[in-house]
């Protein structure tokens, strides 16, 4: 397991860095002990700090570890598992995600069900993520991983959407799909499949429309039509039967909707509604809930009425202050 993803900050070339490279088979625990953590203030349990990189003056004031993963709870979690407690299960997006290339661009489609084991946790989640104005990405697998890998909420430069934006600012050009592809596959490969995100990446750039699939271990395929997720076989059967080159926009949307519906109705991990994203040169359309083939039909119009009210032991009412707007009136003071 090659967990090299540690934030070394400015001290990239200390002697220890080379020692570390030499001993690549380290347990995550060792990684934790050796990694500099500027935010010691936050972790009273950090007793054995073998190496101090002299950045500790920032502790207590700055935001905790800038990016990357932190492994400090691994030891405790392993201890709990050894005592017989089962590890937690994560929110997965069982999913059917598809993409196809039509005459003028790319169409991406996804279902909207998120599952937690056998239970449907979210009946209408969004699986088509924004990467760049001309590139979108559908994600299947562990929901947190697909959101993080494609998202921008982590200020770490590792997250692809923010990296693409910075690249756009630097080069002054629109992003290319192949750039997003390379960034994603590098990130996923470096975690050796532990970041469990299977993606369908599609977009239109200066070189034309592109569609790629990316597997959790980092391998990629470039295809005219692609499906991923637990419903991929159901959707692929529709594509294999009905896909042809040079589809028009409406034919393409109809085919994608049909493929996702076959996933929704035949695969238990996919369900609810169909989301579609159409990307053409210079223009994109995100059709959220394009089709809703599973509306709720059993709602009682009377609603629920409770004859026996809940018994309340104590009530405490805290009035909230009015929100005060401060407006600057008058001129600023002169120096």
């Amino acid at each position, binding site marked *: 397991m090659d967990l090299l993803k540690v934030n070394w900050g400015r001290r990239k070339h200390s002697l220890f860095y080379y020692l570390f490279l030499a001993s690549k088979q380290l347990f995550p625990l060792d990684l934790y002990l050796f990694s500099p953590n500027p935010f010691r203030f936050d972790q009273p349990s950090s007793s054995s700090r073998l190496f101090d990189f002299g950045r500790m003056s920032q502790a207590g004031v700055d935001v905790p570890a800038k990016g990357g993963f932190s492994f400090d709870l691994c030891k405790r979690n392993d201890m709990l598992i050894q005592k017989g407690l089962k590890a*937690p299960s994560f929110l997965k997006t069982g999913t059917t995600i598809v993409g196809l290339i039509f005459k003028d661009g790319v169409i991406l489609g996804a279902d909207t069900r998120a599952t937690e084991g056998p239970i*449907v946790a979210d009946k209408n989640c969004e699986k088509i993520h924004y990467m760049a104005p001309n590139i979108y990405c559908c994600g299947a697998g562990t929901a*947190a991983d697909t*959101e993080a890998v494609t998202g921008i909420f982590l200020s770490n430069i590792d997250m692809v959407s923010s990296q693409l934006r910075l690249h756009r600012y630097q080069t002054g050009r629109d992003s290319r799909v192949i750039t997003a592809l390379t960034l994603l596959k590098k990130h996923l490969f470096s975690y050796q499949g532990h970041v469990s995100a299977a993606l369908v990446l599609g977009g239109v750039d200066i070189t034309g429309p592109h569609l790629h699939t990316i597997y959790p271990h980092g391998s990629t395929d470039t295809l005219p039509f692609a499906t991923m997720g637990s419903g991929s076989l159901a959707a692929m059967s529709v594509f294999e039967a009905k896909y042809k080159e040079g589809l028009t926009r409406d034919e393409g949307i109809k085919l994608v909707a049909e493929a996702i519906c076959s996933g929704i109705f035949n695969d238990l991990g996919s369900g609810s509604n169909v989301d579609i994203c159409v990307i053409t040169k210079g223009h994109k359309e995100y059709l959220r809930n394009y089709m809703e083939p599973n509306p709720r039909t059993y709602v009682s119009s009377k609603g629920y009425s409770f004859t026996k009210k809940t018994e309340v032991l104590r009530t405490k009412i805290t*009035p909230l202050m009015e929100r005060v707007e401060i407006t600057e009136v008058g001129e600023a003071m002169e120096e």
Partner: protein
Amino acid sequence: MSIFEYNGSAVVAMVGKNCFAIASDRRLGVQLQTIATDFQRISKIHDRVFIALSGLATDVQTLYQRLVFRHKLYQLREERDMKPETFASLVSAILYEKRFGPYLCQPVIAGLGEDEKPFICTMDSIGAKELAKDFVVSGTASESLYGACEAMYKPDMEAEELFETISQALLSSVDRDCLSGWGGHVYVVTPTEIKERILKGRMD
């Protein structure tokens, strides 16, 4: 037994008309033995944002302290309170940072955003956000809570009706779960006041 079933918990949040309600049970146990019947799972971040954490109680308390700390830093820097959407992103980032050795708790966040529009969301233990427009649930009683809320929820309820609905959903769900219950703790927040109520439930 799963790690989340070590302490037992039940948390639910619901959206009403310009208000929201967030409720939890009050039991703290060590597997099948009850240790406390007044455990605080819902915490106030600021007047308009509440977070309730279900799962391992030690992580609930640690994570709450970390989040309050981060919010206080934000208040000092920005001189204003965090919006609920921003707070949800913050929690998600803190949880994902520990992707390979996670905090063993699942938060439910509820708040009043811009224009007093209620916001609720829940996450799994590694920060996958799940925004909902009606209700979110978490904890060992989550499966019963899903069922009860699906049946009892109506959109655009006023504060009193919302309180009644969420209490009934919570109490009926925890009755079907051994590890949670022993009363209920409900906060109903409107733009003008926060009403905190302790419910009487079955003590078994």
